């Protein structure tokens, strides 16, 4: 394969990956965030006590997380078709990627919020804050660095997941690696794909770390 052609394929696949990861990461996290907050605050005696609903949502989240991603992709094809009108292609691949993001991100958000000192919630209650004010002014504000790291971790996982949506014609870097590098036995393509993925993950992680550090005021020294 000529270098021009390889570059062309890599570029196109990179854009597909970025497209899928960005859209599913954003939508999935936006849906996952409130679910994570709910999971962290709806236990017995917590801000929005609803232990039964908490348990039910917990079960669904666990079920979604334990389903292997490639099976999820195939299993929800009817739903994907309902939503996007097609079951193949990059846009169609975004649906299972988003579905997989929601439980993953919500568990990370839940953990981030549970890390917050209970004393802060008590202090806010003692000031006369409503549960919603506590969520926005205390929990989300204090958990912001951890949530940014969780988002970073989600994006990195999505980059990995996106390699599997080649199965439904989603395209992307992973698909390129499998079809050219593996099935056509072109090690140079495989190597190029892996290098691009490594660089991409590095960039995402560094950006996420930097952002989280910027918002983390816990270990500042005067």
């Amino acid at each position, binding site marked *: 394969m000529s270098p021009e052609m390889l570059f062309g394929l890599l570029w196109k696949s990179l854009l597909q990956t970025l497209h899928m990861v960005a859209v599913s990461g954003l939508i999935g996290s936006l849906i996952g965030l409130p679910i994570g907050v709910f999971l962290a605050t709806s236990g017995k005696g917590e801000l929005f006590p609803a232990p039964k609903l908490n348990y039910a949502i917990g079960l669904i989240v666990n079920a979604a997380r334990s389903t292997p991603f490639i099976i999820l992709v195939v299993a929800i094809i009817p739903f994907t078709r309902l939503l996007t009108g097609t079951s193949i292609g990059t846009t169609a691949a975004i649906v299972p990627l988003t579905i997989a993001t929601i439980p993953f991100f919500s568990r990370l958000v839940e953990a981030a919020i549970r890390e917050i000192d209970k004393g802060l919630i008590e202090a806010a*209650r003692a*000031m006369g804050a409503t549960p919603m004010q506590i969520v926005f002014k*205390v929990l989300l504000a204090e958990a912001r660095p951890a949530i940014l790291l969780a988002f970073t971790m989600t994006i990195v996982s999505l980059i990995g997941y996106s390699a599997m949506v080649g199965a439904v014609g989603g395209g992307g870097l992973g698909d390129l690696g499998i079809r050219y590098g593996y099935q056509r036995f072109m090690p140079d393509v495989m190597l190029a794909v892996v290098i691009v993925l490594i660089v991409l993950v590095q960039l995402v992680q560094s950006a996420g770390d930097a952002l989280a550090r910027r918002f983390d005021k816990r270990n500042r020294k005067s």
Partner: protein
Amino acid sequence: MILPPVAAETAPHERAEAAAPMITFEGVTKRFGEGTEAFTALDGIDMTVNRGAIAGIIGRSGAGKSTLIRLVNGLEKATSGQVVVDGTEVGGLNDAGLRGLRREVAMIFQHFNLLSSRTAFDNVALPLEIAGLDRKAIRAKVGPLLDLVGLGDKATRYPSELSGGQKQRVGIARALATSPKLLLSDEATSALDPETTQSILALLKQINAELGLTVLLITHEMEVIKTIASHVAVIDKGRIVEQGPTFDVFTAPQHETTRILLSSTLGTSLPEWLRSGLKAEPAAGDRILVRLTFFGATAFQPLTARLVTEIGGDVNILAGAIEEIAGEPFGTLVVSYPASPEILDRANRFYAETGLSTEVLGYVA
């Protein structure tokens, strides 16, 4: 040292006595859990806190004092009995009513509970944001509060950049933001070193005097009560075992728990080397160990020198301390002298004549 005459000024608790109480506990019981796992944290609490007073509740950890203070702002609900704050029965309030109450009843905490993501300024602003004030009104309030607690220059600092004492000052400024009428202090100085503790207590005293704010504090440190509380309640295993003006409770403790809590602070505990040799009955040639307590009128007379003259030169001073309790002087002195009948006789006559309060601790060889 010249001590001020004791009767020149009325004690703070006597001034506040007239007005209606700020807090009343009436037969308050709090149980956690149900059935066989039920645990009674508070049992039949009756207590009042007067308007403008600084009242203290002292007890060991697990005695129920944290639960008790949380009943006042409704963070806990009483199982039975009534908690009345400034005429309002806390147990009868709905959520909105409780939020209203909590704007008038502020709280400070042992571990400060400041938001790490907010600067000192924004931490103080938080209760005002919660109350729905606009940015401009908030700015106008926060600056003076930071000045009041001595942190005017630390407005843009984050909690991680502040010392423990500074964090508690931010906590106090935050508590004062909504102009409360009552301040609850939950072990506010327990995480601080003794020097910082004193400066925080001085600040609380100042706020109490200048703003007329009623303060209810819980602590396990007698030192805290002794320094600022005009009234004290001693709590043990969910019951108040003793309460009254701090000076009375400290100088004449009635309950064993009070004595134990007191012994470490008031210099009333004997040094180990003395305690180990102590006997209940005298043998020939033994010396008697007596604890003398000075307060009220006896605190200002040169009684020690007279004691030596009355008994003879063989008086030995073994331990002693002069303290200030709720602004009044209080001294203890442990002395020994020969336990011979004529010396004991002379000493007892001297005590009867001067009104010194004494306690025979035992005899040593």
